[in-house]
């Protein structure tokens, strides 16, 4: 046991002391911070630069519809209606006004122009031309301003009081969305889907990065022949266990630092946003994470990591060079890629049959099941069965890998064929 601890300690300390580990671990939270702050910052910049109102309205309706649209584009009567230029023309002057407006848009004096005429009043038809014509958001705001202006104009024509019309047509609708699945209402929509996807991706990254680290570590011991010295002091099983546990501890430490700083950033978002001269975001959609999910996450990480770490170690013990290692690791990497390929379909529909199957297969379960869990309610027995499956597969992979490792660590030269590999497993 003392020797296992010695191996774990070396694996852990040598990796944590590595400057790349320090860079990546510090860079992680910075990255989180940028991800969190950047959208808010950009959307604020976007609001400030909103040029939807920076257009010209060529109004040939003769009823002042252009002014109504301009008012609405600029946020109501209190807004700065001057941002939008309204040109009132006679119906026969529209063509001339349009060609003039086109020149102005080309000269970047305006973003675009909107033409309103008698057809707009009778058949709700209008035309727009401008640099931002392909921006769905901006077209949507212009359309909605026009729709509301037209509605107001009609209500007034029907004899309603203009002020009442103003109050009645200025509606702002807020809609929350919630998923309903075969299993009933569950999850809080897009927020937890993104959260689940992030979790899956994080688990995947951790397993890939630290699994590969194990592979490189074993290969290093083999190619430098340090392994010969070490196995004259401890058994290969202790060496393998120490390596897997030590590297896993580094992974957990890194995740803890990342998650901890992400939570801290979230807690202190208001002072940070204020520093950047932005109003604090009112409601960042951070889903509530139940403790059960956290427990399951940790279990899936440990088991999934153990499963793949053992496989990567076996690959490292099988080969004698980096080139061979890349090839021999491919089947293991494929198993991992297979699970992340299904992440997106599962995120879109976490209760489909596909999602269920992928989350039960032990090789993809550690990545997919936590993602499904954060999106929908999984019955406890399904969870228990999946965890048991992953645990058994993990045990089997550790057992097989330990045997391959025992024989392979001191074998050099050609990569073993599958038949030779089977013999290694038998004879170990």
């Amino acid at each position, binding site marked *: 046991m003392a020797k296992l601890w010695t191996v774990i300690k070396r694996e852990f300390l040598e990796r944590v002391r590595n400057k790349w580990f320090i860079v990546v671990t510090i860079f992680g939270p910075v990255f989180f911070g940028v991800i969190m702050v950047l959208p808010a910052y950009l959307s604020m910049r976007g609001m400030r630069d909103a040029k939807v109102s920076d257009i010209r309205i060529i109004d040939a309706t003769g009823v002042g519809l252009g002014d109504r649209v301009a008012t609405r584009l600029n946020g109501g009567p209190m807004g700065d209606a001057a941002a939008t230029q309204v040109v009132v023309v006679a119906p026969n002057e529209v063509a001339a006004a349009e060609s003039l407006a086109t020149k102005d848009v080309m000269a970047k004096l305006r973003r675009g122009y909107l033409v309103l005429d008698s057809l707009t009043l009778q058949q709700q038809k209008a035309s727009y031309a401008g640099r931002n014509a392909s921006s769905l958001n901006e077209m949507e705001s212009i359309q909605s301003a026009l729709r509301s202006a037209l509605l107001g104009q009609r209500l007034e024509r029907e004899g309603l009081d203009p002020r009442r019309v103003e109050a009645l047509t200025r509606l702002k609708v807020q809609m929350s969305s919630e998923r309903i699945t075969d299993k009933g209402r569950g999850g809080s929509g897009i927020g937890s889907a993104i959260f689940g996807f992030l979790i899956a991706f994080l688990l995947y990254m951790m397993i890939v990065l630290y699994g590969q680290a194990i592979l490189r570590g074993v290969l290093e*011991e083999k190619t430098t*022949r340090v392994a*010969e010295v070490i196995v*004259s*002091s401890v058994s290969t099983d202790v060496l393998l266990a120490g390596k897997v546990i030590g590297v896993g501890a580094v992974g957990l430490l890194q995740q803890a630092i990342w998650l901890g700083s992400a939570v801290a950033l979230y807690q202190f978002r208001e002072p940070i946003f204020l520093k950047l001269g932005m109003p604090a975001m009112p409601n960042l959609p951070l889903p509530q994470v139940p403790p059960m999910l956290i427990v399951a996450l940790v279990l899936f990480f440990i088991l999934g990591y153990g499963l793949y770490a053992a496989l990567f170690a076996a690959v490292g013990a099988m080969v004698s060079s980096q080139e061979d290692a890349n090839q021999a690791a491919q089947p293991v990497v494929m198993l991992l890629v297979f699970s992340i390929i299904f992440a997106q379909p599962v995120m879109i529909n976490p209760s489909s049959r596909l999602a269920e199957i992928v989350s039960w297969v032990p090789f993809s379960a550690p990545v997919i099941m936590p993602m499904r869990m954060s999106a929908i309610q999984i019955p406890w027995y399904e969870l228990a069965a999946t965890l048991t499956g992953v645990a058994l597969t993990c045990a089997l992979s550790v057992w097989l890998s330990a045997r391959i490792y025992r024989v392979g660590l*001191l074998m050099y030269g050609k990569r073993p064929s599958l038949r030779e590999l089977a*013999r290694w497993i038998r004879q170990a």
Partner: protein
Amino acid sequence: MTDSALALRGITKRFAEHVAVRELSLDVPRGAVYGLLGPNGAGKTTTIRMILNVIAPDAGTITVLGTPNTAPGLLDRLGYLPEERGLYKKMQVRRLLRFLAELKGVDARTADRRIDEWLDRLALRGPEKDWGSAKVDELSRGMQQKVQFIGTLLHDPELIILDEPFSGLDPINAQALKDTVVELKRRGKTVIFSTHLMDNAERLCDSVCIIAHGDKVLDGAVAAVKSAHQRRNVALSLEGAPSSEVTAVLQDPALIWKMDDNNRYFELEMSASGDPQHLLRRLIGAGAQVQRFELIQPSLHQIFLDRVGAAGVEEGMSGHG
């Protein structure tokens, strides 16, 4: 048997394609310097790995320091220097040595003290430069070999096994290694080393075992081995060129089986019926001016060539590595 540092009884190891070690038995007395000699691919490294319990023999028993070699804690009393040297390149020398010592059950404080002693002793630490705080890959090859050697001895093992310790050593390190082996013996430690360099073995070893193609060719104390292989070899020097009468005597097949003729210096091997005393009388009778006539012992190198060459031919094996 209890005074054996190592006792092998009929150990056999088969790999898929060949038998690496066949029915090998040997005893290494405590406090001896023991040479495991053989050509490349003879099974030396396989034997050592079985002694260290890294691989298990298919048959036979291995007793190390009086206990079966699978006994827990036994590895802490053994020191092993593998043939292929290597260290963690990115690790600091002192941390690496502490790690190796801790793997052998030495506590950190004792390890640190011994590390400093050894670094001083092998000139890896001086007033201007302490290589102990450098990374392994900043060291020259010779210095890395010293570090590895320190790692083998830090836990003060009772039995030290060195696999081809002289391969790749520069002359200065080779001398340091020999000095250390002699000192270990003086302190009552047992040292086993494998080598195919017979000169070193002949000078350092008390006893040897020669193996080839997995079979033991011979073993025993060096002096006993050499006298057992005394083939009545004669070194002969003459004053002046040999006369025709003298030449006739030297070419008599009843007396001499093999002759290495260097004009005035001859190495002769007596034939089965030949008697060296009779030869001397005949030479003097023929009028030879004898400067030197000496019965000489064959070198370990010669014995090795004779026996291993013969064994290889007898078995007609290809001798793969």
